[in-house]
C-alpha cells in the first residue's frame, strides 16, 4: 500500500465482540455507529474475535482494501495482544507504529457488567481518545537489543530444577536461586508419587544429580532474590546469599523463570488438627516414609477431603489432594490389608485421565470406602469418632479412627507479593502468579522475558509441574537463542533548535541517558538512544518543549486529554 501520503489520515477501527466478553455487556453495534462519525475514520468493522485467524485477516483486508494508514483495535489489553495486532499491520504493509490499542474489555466490559448504557458510553469515549492519538502517530522502526544469554530460575523445587536442567542442557548459563538450604521443595517430604508409585526421593535425586553435572548451571542455596532491575535481555538481579558465607551477588541475566512453589495449608483449628493423631496428608507422607511399622499397626484410618478449601476463604480446588488421598490410602491398605480406610469427600472426587481413574477403581477394589458429605453437613470430629451424615443412608454414621488425615490445599507463600512486586507481575486473588493469557500464553507473564511454572502458578501434580517447567524453559530459551530481542522504539529525542542546554532533562533521567554536548550551534542536550528506556521523565521536565518522547509525545497525550469529553 502507498504510505507516502501519511498526511491524509485514513483511520480504520476494528471493534471486538470477544465472543460475549465484550459483546455481552456493551452495545457494540451502537459503538460502531458512533465510531464511524469520528474524524478521519474511513472504515469500521466489528469482529467476533479480532485475534482469531478470521479477525486478523479482516484487519489485513481492511488495510489493503481501504488503504488505511492508521489502525485501531478496540478489544482487550495491549499488555497481552498489542504485539499480535502490530505484527498483522506489518504483514499488511503498514508500519506497526501506526497502530493504537483501545482497551474496552479489562477496563470496560468486564468491570461494568451491569451498566450497559454507561459502559457503552465509556467505550465510545475511550475509542474517541484512541482516534485522537492514532491520528498523531508516526511511523518508526523497532530497536534491537542484545540479550544476556543467561537465565535466572527462582525456586529449586522440582519445577525450578527441571527448568534449570533443561536450559543448562541447551548450553545456556543458568543461575538457580533457592532460599532453603537444600533443593527439592515439597518433593523432599513426599513418599511415593501417584499414579505409578515412584519414589519421590528417586525422582528428586535423579534430577539433582543431572543438574549438578552441568558446569553452566550454578546453584545458590540459602539465597534469596532481593532486587530486580532492568528489562528483557538485560536484568540485573541482586541475590542475598546466607550460606556458606554471607554476601551479596549481582547477577546479569536476560530472562527469568519463576518457580517458587507453594506450601501445604496447616489446618490450625480445623477438625481438631493436632499434628499427632489428626494430621495432614503431607505429615502422613512423612510417616509413610519413616514410620511404616507404626502405621501398619493402625486399624482405622479416616481421611477428610477439601479441608480449608473450596469454602468462603479459599474458594479454589487444590486439584491434587484427591489423588494424594487415594494414593496414600492405597499405600496404607497395602501395608495393612486389614485396615479399615475411609475417604470422606465433598461432592466430587477429582480423578482425571485414564490412569487416575484406574487408580481410583483399584482403591475401591482394595476395600477403601468413599463416603460423601455435603458442605452444609460437615463431618464432626470427636476423640474417637468422625460423625458424618451419610446421604445415601439418610442418617448419621460414626466412623472410629486411630489416625485422621486431613487433605488440605496447596496455598501460596505469604511473601509471593514481594517477588511479584520486584518483577512487576500480577498475582491472582489467592496470591498465585498470574500468567499473561490462560490459553495463549500460559507460561509467560505479560512482561517480556519472565516466565512461570509449577505450583507458584497453581496447584499441580509432579508430572504437570515437570511439563510446565520444560515449557517455560523452552519459552525462556527463545530470546536467548535469538541473542537479540526487538523492542519498541519508545525513546526520546531532543530538538536541537529548541534546546537551551539547561540540563534539566539530564538531571531527571534515571538512566543518565542524556548528555549536554558541544555542537556547532552551541551546547545542546543529546539522548544516548542505547541507554534511554523511554520513561518520558525528560519530556515532562523540559521547559522548551524540545523533547519528543516517541509514541508518547506531548501532542499525542494532550490530544487524548482533549478528547476525554466529546
Amino acid at each position: 500500500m502507498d504510505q507516502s501520503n501519511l498526511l491524509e489520515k485514513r483511520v480504520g477501527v476494528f471493534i471486538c465482540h470477544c465472543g460475549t466478553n465484550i459483546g455481552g455487556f456493551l452495545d457494540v453495534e451502537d459503538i460502531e455507529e458512533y465510531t464511524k462519525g469520528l474524524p478521519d475514520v474511513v472504515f469500521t468493522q466489528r469482529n467476533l474475535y479480532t485475534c482469531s485467524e478470521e479477525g486478523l485477516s479482516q484487519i489485513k483486508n481492511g488495510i489493503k482494501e481501504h488503504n488505511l494508514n492508521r489502525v485501531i483495535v478496540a478489544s482487550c489489553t495491549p499488555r497481552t495482544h498489542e504485539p499480535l495486532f502490530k505484527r498483522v499491520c506489518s504483514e499488511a504493509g503498514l508500519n506497526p507504529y501506526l497502530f493504537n490499542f483501545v482497551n474496552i474489555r479489562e477496563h470496560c466490559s468486564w468491570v461494568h457488567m451491569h451498566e450497559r448504557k454507561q459502559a457503552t458510553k465509556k467505550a465510545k469515549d475511550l475509542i474517541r481518545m484512541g482516534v485522537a492519538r492514532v491520528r498523531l502517530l508516526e511511523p518508526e522502526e523497532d530497536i534491537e537489543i542484545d540479550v544476556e544469554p543467561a537465565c535466572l530460575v527462582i525456586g529449586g523445587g522440582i519445577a525450578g530444577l527441571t527448568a534449570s536442567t533443561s536450559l543448562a542442557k541447551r548450553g545456556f548459563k543458568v543461575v538457580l536461586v533457592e532460599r532453603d538450604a537444600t533443593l527439592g521443595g515439597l518433593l523432599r517430604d513426599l513418599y511415593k508419587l501417584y499414579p505409578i508409585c515412584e519414589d519421590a526421593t528417586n525422582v528428586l535425586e535423579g534430577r539433582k544429580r543431572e543438574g549438578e553435572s552441568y558446569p553452566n548451571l550454578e546453584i545458590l542455596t540459602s539465597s534469596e532474590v532481593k532486587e530486580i532491575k532492568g528489562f528483557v535481555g538485560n536484568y540485573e538481579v541482586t541475590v542475598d546469599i546466607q550460606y556458606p558465607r554471607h554476601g551479596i551477588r549481582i547477577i546479569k541475566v536476560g530472562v527469568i523463570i519463576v518457580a517458587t512453589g507453594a506450601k501445604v495449608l496447616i489446618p490450625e483449628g480445623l477438625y481438631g488438627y493436632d499434628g499427632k493423631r489428626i494430621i495432614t496428608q503431607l505429615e502422613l507422607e512423612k510417616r509413610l516414609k519413616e514410620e511404616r511399622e507404626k502405621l501398619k499397626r493402625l486399624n482405622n484410618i479416616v481421611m477428610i477431603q477439601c479441608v480449608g478449601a473450596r469454602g468462603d476463604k479459599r474458594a479454589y480446588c487444590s486439584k491434587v489432594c484427591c489423588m494424594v488421598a487415594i494414593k496414600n490410602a492405597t499405600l496404607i491398605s497395602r501395608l495393612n490389608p486389614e485396615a479399615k480406610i475411609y475417604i470422606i469427600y465433598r461432592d466430587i472426587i477429582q480423578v482425571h485421565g485414564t490412569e487416575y481413574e484406574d487408580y481410583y477403581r483399584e482403591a475401591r477394589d482394595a476395600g477403601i470406602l468413599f463416603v460423601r458429605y455435603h458442605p452444609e453437613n460437615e463431618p464432626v470430629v470427636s476423640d474417637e469418632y468422625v460423625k458424618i451424615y451419610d446421604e445415601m443412608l439418610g442418617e448419621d454414621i460414626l466412623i472410629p479412627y486411630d489416625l485422621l488425615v486431613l487433605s488440605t490445599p496447596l496455598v501460596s507463600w505469604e511473601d509471593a507479593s514481594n517477588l511479584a512486586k520486584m518483577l512487576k507481575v500480577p498475582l491472582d486473588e489467592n496470591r498465585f502468579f498470574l500468567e499473561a493469557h490462560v490459553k495463549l500464553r500460559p507460561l509467560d507473564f505479560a512482561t517480556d522475558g519472565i516466565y512461570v511454572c509449577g505450583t507458584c502458578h497453581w496447584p499441580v501434580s509432579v508430572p504437570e509441574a515437570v511439563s510446565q517447567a520444560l515449557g517455560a524453559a523452552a519459552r525462556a530459551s527463545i530470546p536467548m537463542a535469538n541473542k537479540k530481542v526487538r523492542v519498541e522504539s519508545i525513546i526520546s529525542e531532543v530538538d536541537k533548535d529548541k534546546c537551551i542546554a539547561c540540563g534539566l532533562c539530564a538531571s531527571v533521567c534515571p538512566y543518565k541517558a542524556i548528555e549536554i554536548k558541544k555542537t556547532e550551534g552551541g551546547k545542546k542536550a543529546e539522548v544516548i538512544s542505547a541507554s534511554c528506556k523511554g520513561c518520558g521523565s525528560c519530556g515532562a521536565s523540559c521547559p522548551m518543549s524540545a523533547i519528543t518522547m516517541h509514541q508518547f509525545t506531548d501532542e499525542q497525550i494532550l490530544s487524548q486529554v482533549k478528547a476525554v469529553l466529546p
Partner: protein
Amino acid sequence: MRFPDEGVSIKDEGSKTEFSPKILSFLCNWCSYAGADLAGVSRFQYPTNTRVIRVMCSARVDPIMILEGFVQGLDGILVLGCHLGDCHYIHGNYFTIKRVKLTHKLLKQAGIHQDRLYLDWVSAAEGERYAKMIAWFIDEVRKLGPFGEVEGIDAEELKERAKVAQGAARSDKLRWLAGKEIDLCGEERIGIQGKNVYGEQVSKEDYDILMNENVLNEYTRSGIISLIRENPLSIKEIASKLKMCPAEVLQHISILEHAGVVFLTEEEGRTPRYIGV
C-alpha cells in the same frame, strides 16, 4: 486526602444521584495499568466514570497535561504509578511526586480544589485495590460537586484559570524547581543527598517557600499574558483588572518584556500599552 485502604467498598453508592463525575486517570504501563487489567480479569465491578490514558511511567505525566484536563472541565484527575521503589524506571515516580506537588500548588493558586487531583500507587497485583480506589475517588469528587461547585466559581471562569495555571506550568522557573528539588533537597529513600552549587543541602522548608513564591509569581505573570494576549492594556488597566498594585504589575511586565513574551505597543498621545504573545 489519602485513600484509606480499609473499609472502602467497590460498590458505587452514589451512582443514582444526578451528578456523575467525569474523571481521567493516567496509568503507568507496568503497575497501575496492569492492576487495572487485573481488576478486569477478576471482574471487580466498579463505577464507569474514569477514562484512561496509558503512559509508560507516571514520570511522563507533565503538569501541563494534568492541567489540560481541568481546562477541559473534568471534575477529577488521577495519576497512578508503581509503588515507590517499584518504578520500572528505577525512581521515575519520585519525580512524579514533585510534578504533582507543583500541580497541586498551581491548582490552589487558581482556586481549584486540590482534592480534584490525586496521586497514588497501585501495583500489578492490586486489582481489587485499584477498583476500590477508583470507587473511592469518584465518591470524593462527587462530594466536591461538578467542576466549579465547591470552588463557588463559574465553571467557564475556572477553566480560564486552569489555562492560566497551565501557562505557569510552562514556565522554566517552575519546571526547574519541580525538576531540581531532589537534586537540591535530597531524597533519603533513594539515597540521594541533595546539594546546591555550594555543596549544601537545601532545606525542604526553604524550598517550599521558594516554590510558593514562584508559583504565585508565575501564575500572576501567566494571568497577565493571557489578559493582554489579544487586546493591549496599560499598566493601570492591568492592575485594576487583576486587583493588584501598579508597581507590582510593572515589575512583572518588565520581567515578561525581558523574556520576550510581552511587548510595548506605543500609539501617539496614548498611555503605553502592552501586548502578550
